[in-house]
C-alpha cells in the first residue's frame, strides 16, 4: 500500500452501535482517487433506491483524498456525500481546514455512516481506533461551544472536530457540516443528514505518519509554489483580499446577483467588497493544513451591539454576495454577523442568503405579509431583518421554520406566482454568478448532479479572448485550444464547460483545493497536478488518468440521480433567467434563449457519452469507466 494512504475505511452502524474497519486494496484507491468517489461507491452499493434522505437508510460518507495530509498546498480537503434532503438528488459538498489531514493522521481515509443512533453521539477516531461517545451534553450547542467543550473533555487542544450546529439538529434542509467552526461542507444539506442520525460530531486525533512515495519531489513542488505566489497574479489577489477580491469584477460584467437576481449590478458593490473587508475589519489571514495561499479571512467588528468574532472566520465572496447584493444589503457588518450566525448554527451561507432574498422578493410582491413574518419588514436592503431571519432559520422559529425548508419548497407552499421568483436548480439555490454573463457556468448550474454549483467547472472568463497566456497554456493540456469571444455561448464553450467540469470533478475526488490546483488560473496547473500525484503515490498518473477519475465521479453522481428517476427534464434553469434582466450594466435587458439552452444540453450529453433523450449515463459509458456494476 502506498504510504500517503492510511489504508483504512471506518464503517459505522449507528442503529446497532457497531463499528468495523475495512482495508481496501490499492487498486480501489487508484480507480476512484480516494475522496468522494469512494464514498459514492459505498452509497450506490449499499443504499436502497428511494431511500428518504432523513431515514436511517440514508448513508453519509466522509472521505479525504489520496494526497491529503502531505506537505504541499491545497491537499487538505474532505468530501461528504449522502442523499440530499434539499434536492432529493445526490448530495455532495467539499471543505478544507485541518480536519481532512487530521483524519488521515488519526489512521483513516474515510468513514461510511449508516443507521440512526438512539441518542445523540459523537464519533472519536484516535490513532487507528474508533468509538462512539455520548453527545447529549453537546446537543443544542453552537459550533464554537462544542469545539471548546470537546477540547477540554478530551484534554487535547490539537483535536479536530467536524460537527453540526443547532440547524443540523433541527433538520434545516441546507444545514452544513462545520470544521474549525468556520469551514463548511455547506452545500446540499449534509448537516441535516448528520442531524437526522443524531450524530453531533466526528472528532479526530492522532499522529500516524503519511508519507509521499517521492518526498524530494513533493518538497520541490511545494517550494516552487511558494516562489510562484507573487507571480500567479490571481492567487496573489486571493491572498490579499480573499475570495471577496472578485466583487468589483463580478459587478463590472453584470454577474453580481442583486435583489434576488432581478439585476446583475449592485450600486453599493464597493461597500461589500473584499478590499473593503481588508481595509476595515480584517485581523488575520487564515489557512488550511499545509497551504501557503492563506485565502481564508478572520475579521473583527460589531453589528448592532453584537460582536463579530475572528474565531468564526470571515465572509467568502459567495456570502458577501448572498447576504449583500442578493438581498440588496450594503451593510458589511450585518453580512459578517449573518456569516457568523450561519457558522455558529451550521448553515450553508449560499442557500441561507439566497432563500432570504427569495422571501424578500415574495414580500415585496405581496406573497408574504407582515403578519406572516411576525411584523418583520422583509424589504430588500433591510439588514436588521436579514440578521433576525438567519437566527430564526437556525432555530426553526416563526417564519424561519418555513425558510428552513429552502426557497423551492417555500415557493410550493406560497403557490401562485412565487415560483417565478425562484433562483434554484434541482431545488438548490444558485450561487452568486449570473449565467447571463457566465454562459457556460449557467449550463453547469443546470446539469450538475447535485444542483447549482459554482465550483464544478471553470468560469467563462478563463476561456475568453484577452485572458492571460497562463490560462490558455493550461487549458490546452485538457484539449481546449480556442478561446472564445467574451460573453459568447457556442458548442466550443460547451466543450469548455464539460471538460473543465471533468477536471474539477477529479480535483474533488483527489481531495484538492480548487484555489490551488486547477485547469487555468491557480497556483498549480494540470501538469503539476499529475507530477504531484505521481510523487505522492508512485503510480504513473498522467492527465488522461486524472480526467478518467473525474469522469468516473461525474458518472457515479449522475447514476445515483438516474436511479432516483432524475432525467434531462430536471436539468433546468429558473424561468426568470429566460426573461430580460433589469438594472444596469452589460447584462441589463439580457435574457437566455430557451432553444439555445436545450441545444447546449444536447451537445453536453453527447460529449459526456450519455443518452441525449434521458440525459443519463449509458451502459456503454458506465462499462468504459469500470462501473458496469451500475449498469445492471
Amino acid at each position: 500500500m502506498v504510504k500517503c494512504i492510511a489504508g483504512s475505511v471506518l464503517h459505522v452502524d449507528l442503529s446497532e452501535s457497531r463499528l468495523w474497519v475495512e482495508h481496501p486494496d490499492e487498486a480501489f484507491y487508484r480507480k476512484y482517487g480516494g475522496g468522494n468517489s469512494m464514498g459514492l461507491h459505498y452509497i450506490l452499493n449499499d443504499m436502497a433506491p428511494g431511500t428518504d434522505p432523513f431515514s436511517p437508510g440514508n448513508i453519509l460518507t466522509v472521505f479525504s483524498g489520496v494526497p491529503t495530509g502531505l506537505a504541499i498546498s491545497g491537499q487538505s480537503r474532505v468530501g461528504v456525500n449522502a442523499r440530499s434532503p434539499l434536492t432529493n438528488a445526490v448530495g455532495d459538498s467539499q471543505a478544507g481546514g485541518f480536519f481532512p489531514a487530521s483524519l488521515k493522521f488519526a489512521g483513516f481515509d474515510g468513514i461510511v455512516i449508516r443507521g440512526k443512533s438512539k441518542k445523540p453521539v459523537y464519533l472519536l477516531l484516535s490513532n487507528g481506533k474508533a468509538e462512539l461517545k455520548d453527545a447529549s451534553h453537546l446537543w443544542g450547542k453552537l459550533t464554537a461551544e462544542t469545539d471548546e467543550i470537546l477540547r477540554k473533555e478530551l484534554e487535547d487542544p490539537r483535536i479536530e472536530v467536524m460537527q453540526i450546529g443547532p440547524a443540523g439538529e433541527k433538520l434545516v434542509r441546507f444545514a452544513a457540516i462545520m470544521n474549525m467552526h468556520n469551514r463548511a461542507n455547506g452545500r446540499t444539506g449534509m448537516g441535516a443528514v448528520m442531524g437526522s442520525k443524531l450524530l453531533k460530531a466526528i472528532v479526530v486525533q492522532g499522529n500516524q505518519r503519511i508519507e509521499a512515495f517521492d518526498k524530494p519531489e513533493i518538497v520541490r513542488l511545494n517550494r516552487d509554489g511558494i516562489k510562484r505566489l507573487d507571480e500567479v497574479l490571481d492567487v496573489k489577489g486571493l491572498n490579499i483580499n480573499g475570495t471577496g477580491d472578485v466583487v468589483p469584477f463580478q459587478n463590472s460584467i453584470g454577474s453580481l446577483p442583486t435583489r434576488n437576481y432581478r439585476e446583475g449590478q449592485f450600486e453599493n458593490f464597493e461597500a461589500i467588497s473584499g478590499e473593503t473587508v481588508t481595509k476595515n475589519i480584517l485581523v488575520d489571514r487564515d489557512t488550511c493544513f499545509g497551504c501557503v495561499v492563506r485565502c481564508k479571512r478572520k475579521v473583527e467588528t460589531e453589528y448592532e451591539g453584537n460582536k463579530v468574532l475572528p474565531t468564526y472566520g470571515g465572509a467568502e465572496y459567495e456570502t458577501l454576495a448572498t447576504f449583500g447584493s442578493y438581498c440588496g444589503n450594503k451593510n458589511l457588518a450585518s453580512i459578517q454577523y449573518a456569516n457568523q450566525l450561519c457558522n455558529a448554527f451550521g448553515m450553508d451561507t449560499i442557500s441561507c442568503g439566497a432563500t432570504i432574498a427569495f422571501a424578500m422578493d415574495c414580500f415585496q410582491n405581496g406573497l408574504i405579509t407582515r403578519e406572516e413574518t411576525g411584523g418583520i419588514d422583509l424589504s430588500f436592503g433591510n439588514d436588521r431583518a436579514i440578521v433576525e431571519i438567519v437566527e430564526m432559520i437556525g432555530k426553526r422559529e416563526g417564519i424561519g421554520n418555513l425558510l428552513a425548508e429552502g426557497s423551492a419548497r417555500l415557493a410550493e407552499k406560497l403557490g401562485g406566482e412565487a415560483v417565478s421568483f425562484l433562483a434554484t436548480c434541482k431545488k438548490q439555490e444558485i450561487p452568486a454568478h449570473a449565467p447571463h454573463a457566465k454562459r457556460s457556468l449557467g449550463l453547469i448550474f443546470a446539469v450538475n448532479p447535485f444542483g447549482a454549483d459554482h465550483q464544478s467547472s471553470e468560469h467563462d472568463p478563463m476561456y475568453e479572448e484577452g485572458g492571460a497566456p497562463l490560462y490558455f497554456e493550461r487549458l490546452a493540456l485538457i484539449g481546449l485550444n480556442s478561446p472564445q469571444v467574451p460573453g459568447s455561448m457556442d458548442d466550443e464553450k460547451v466543450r469548455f464547460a464539460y471538460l473543465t467540469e471533468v477536471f474539477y470533478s477529479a480535483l474533488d475526488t483527489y481531495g484538492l483545493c480548487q484555489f490551488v490546483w486547477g485547469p487555468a488560473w491557480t497556483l498549480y496547473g494540470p501538469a503539476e497536478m499529475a507530477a504531484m500525484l505521481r510523487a505522492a503515490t508512485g503510480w504513473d498518473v498522467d492527465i488522461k488518468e486524472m480526467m478518467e477519475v473525474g469522469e468516473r465521479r461525474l458518472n457515479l453522481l449522475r447514476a445515483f440521480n438516474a436511479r432516483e428517476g432524475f432525467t434531462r427534464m430536471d436539468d433546468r434553469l429558473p424561468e426568470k433567467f429566460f426573461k430580460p434582466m433589469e438594472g444596469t450594466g452589460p447584462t441589463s435587458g439580457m435574457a437566455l434563449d430557451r432553444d439555445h439552452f436545450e441545444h447546449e444540453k444536447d451537445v453536453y450529453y453527447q460529449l459526456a457519452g450519455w443518452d441525449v433523450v434521458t440525459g443519463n449515463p449509458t451502459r456503454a459509458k458506465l462499462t468504459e469507466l469500470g462501473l458496469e456494476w451500475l449498469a445492471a
Partner: protein
Amino acid sequence: MAGGLIRVKVTLHSYLKDFLPEELDGETELELQDGVTIDNLIHTLGLPETVAAAVNESIERDHFKALKDGDHVRFLRPGAGG
C-alpha cells in the same frame, strides 16, 4: 475637447493597487491627452497586459477605444469566486 486634455478617474483593484504610490490607495485622477485609450493607460501605469478594465461600471473589452472626459476607469483582476 479634440486635441485638448481630459480628466479620467482611475481605480486599481486587488494586487494592481501596488502600481500606484501607497498613499493613493489605488485611486487617482489623471489629466490626459484627448484620444487616450485603455491600452495607453495600461502602458503608462505599467500594468500587466491581461488586466480587465471597466469604464463607468461596465466591462470594456475594446482597449483601443478612446476614453472621454469624466470617465471612471477601473482595472480589475478577472476571477472565479468561492
